[in-house]
């Protein structure tokens, strides 16, 4: 009897208590629990059976694909380089790989509080993006030159994403400051621009940059199509990000600004030392949300003719022999997107929770 008394008292009790409350509280609830779990298990079984048990894994065994009842991952084995790197020269794929790693590292490091200051973040992104660009382009550091029209796949997606964030973030801060300006011409002008861009679909903005801007600009200002599209995308990002920053500015009491003035600080000193650090903190969850949205939206540049990861995926099963295995390719690309976006948005959720606890 003493054994039982000495056993840890709570775990079994709370677990069954919890189950009773959340799974079997009443007869209909119990039926729902069993039905929904049965359905989930069945779907999980179907997916597992298709993706693992019945699947063909290597490109050498591709001849087994038509008879196998599961996925034909051979197409990924055979074509993953095309999907990840597009038409980048085959021998130089190590450069593409390193460049992608540089961007991913930059994103991961930005999530660490150690880097959360204007200077460090700016430095980190400039270095990360610079490393990417030099590795991909190659010319300036004495490697074989590869022009942007040969970039593709995941590395192009990451390029678009990182350059949009890098250019759009300061632009967004500038727009937010301009909208708060006490000079009516500037604040109205910027408000109109922000509301205009925000009411248009992103695709319209990008299409305008790709097709219409060349008509409106003199020849010497045209630049590359890819840079026009990136700048338009960054403008789109900036207009939304400006509203995120505006929310952050509104959370700062006026008294802080006045305290800075009382100490004899300059406008820019007050902004840089007192206001902005708090604005960044307040707008962090919104900013992460914008970064996630931007990463997702890069996929639509396929429509205006860029060979990003979705386009290279289409090319991967585009040829006759792999045509039946489109689902495998889409699942592979979807998984890449999903992992990036899920981890980033979970991190955003975590920050939001932590900040709301800190506020209390």
């Amino acid at each position, binding site marked *: 009897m003493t054994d039982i008394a000495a056993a840890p008292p709570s775990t079994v009790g709370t677990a069954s208590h919890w189950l009773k409350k959340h799974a079997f509280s009443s007869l209909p609830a119990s039926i729902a629990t069993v039905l929904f779990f049965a359905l989930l298990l069945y779907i999980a079984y179907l997916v597992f059976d298709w993706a693992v048990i019945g699947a063909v894994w290597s490109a050498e065994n591709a001849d087994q694909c038509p008879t196998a009842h599961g996925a034909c991952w051979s197409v990924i084995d055979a074509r993953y380089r095309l999907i990840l790197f597009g038409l980048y020269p085959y021998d130089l794929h190590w450069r593409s790989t390193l460049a992608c790693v540089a961007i991913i590292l930059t994103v991961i490091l930005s999530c660490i509080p150690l880097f959360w200051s204007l200077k460090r973040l700016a430095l980190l992104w400039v270095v990360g993006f610079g490393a990417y660009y030099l590795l991909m382009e190659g010319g300036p550091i004495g490697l074989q030159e590869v022009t942007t029209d040969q970039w593709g796949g995941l590395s192009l997606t990451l390029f678009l994403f990182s350059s949009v964030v890098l250019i759009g973030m300061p632009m967004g801060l500038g727009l937010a400051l301009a909208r708060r300006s006490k000079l009516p011409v500037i604040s109205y002008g910027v408000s109109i621009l922000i509301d205009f861009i925000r009411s248009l679909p992103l695709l319209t903005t990008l299409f305008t940059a790709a097709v219409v801007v060349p*008509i409106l600009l003199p020849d010497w200002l045209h630049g590359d199509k890819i840079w026009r599209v990136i700048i338009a995308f960054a403008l789109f990002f900036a207009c939304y990000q400006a509203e995120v920053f505006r929310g952050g500015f509104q959370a700062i009491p006026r008294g802080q600004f006045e305290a800075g003035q009382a100490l004899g600080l300059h406008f820019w000193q007050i902004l840089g030392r007192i206001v902005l650090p708090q604005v960044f903190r307040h707008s962090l969850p919104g900013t992460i949300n914008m970064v996630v949205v931007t990463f997702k939206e890069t996929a639509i540049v396929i429509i205006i003719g860029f060979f990003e990861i979705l386009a290279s995926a289409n090319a991967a099963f585009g040829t006759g022999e792999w045509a039946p295995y489109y689902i495998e390719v889409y699942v592979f690309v979807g998984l890449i997107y999903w992992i990036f976006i899920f981890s980033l948005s979970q991190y955003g959720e975590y920050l939001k929770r932590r900040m709301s606890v800190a506020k209390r």
Partner: protein
Amino acid sequence: MAEAVILRRKFSAKDLAIQALFLAVIVVIVAEAVSSARTNLAEMGLSSGLAFLDRATGWSYSFSLIDHSIDDSYRKTLFIGFLNTLFLGLVSIVLATVLGFAVGTARDANNIAVRSSATIFIQLFRNIPLILQLVFWYAVLIHMPGPRQAMSIADAIFISNRGVMVPGLTIPTVAGIGLTIFAVVAGVLIARLSALRTSLKLLIWLAAVAALTLLLWVTLAPEGAGLVSAPELKGLRFVGGLPLPIEFVAMVIGITLYGAAYIAEVVRGGLQEVPKGLIEAGRALGLQEGMIWFKIKMPMTLRTIIPPLGNQWVFLMKATTIGVAIGFSDLFMIVSTSITQSGQTLELIGILMAAFILINFTLAQLVNLLNARLRLKGH
């Protein structure tokens, strides 16, 4: 003079100079753009203006609610594109909202199995780009068997690589759209008659809609046709029913699932804000869970979520533009095809932008109206 004095008092010389410079820069950019456009258009041999709107297009496209041909003018073709965008947007918004409310409620459920299913749904469809989901559904549909081996659901709905055939009313499409609009407007009007009981309101509405349906059927349906026609396989294609092209079906599935995942999160946020005390009060009164949802949770939730919900609707409306990736002829696709065919780039882009600003503005007004109506009185 007086104004100038006020201006001088309010702004320093430096402030005025900065604003003047800002205006000057804008004027220079616009002037430069206009002159560049003149020279560039002259080089391409294009004349600007809206005269091209009356020319026949000479090309066809995948989807239209009304009869169309390659002899249509640009004006009519653009209008069809606009209608398609509105139609697809509205259908997707309604479906995504209904599904989103269901999933959001499930996400907030006490039951662990229901809640995890909803979480999986949200995390799956929210974290993959919409365009990837669209091309996926399109690829799945296009790999469906041909009409002869079409998958059938209860011999009423047939899914083949030519589209999804569903039973439909025998009245013309335009009349069907009119009927739907009538049903919505009548529903809103009848709902506002506060003196009547809900069941009576429902009855009046059903009677009105049924009466108009019958009237349209008697006057407009072809001789000898029943009220509803089901699709039937005749030779190599289906006859009767309502054919939904695969581009349209893929768009609706994709936007609905993606939108529902977002709307579900909005709904869950709203449900979590409902004060616990109100729900406990409902339980103390002996209300069933369903009644608590209807009478306490939903009214409270709707009050807080209308603005973010409106944002999602606007987003879904804009998302219709990526239909061009799978060849759905929405306004964007019609405009971009028109640009390639006619070269009237500036005019067409202007029309596209104006259309979206109009759509956005209208939706924003509707959301504001809804928000004002749902607000607690006296707040």
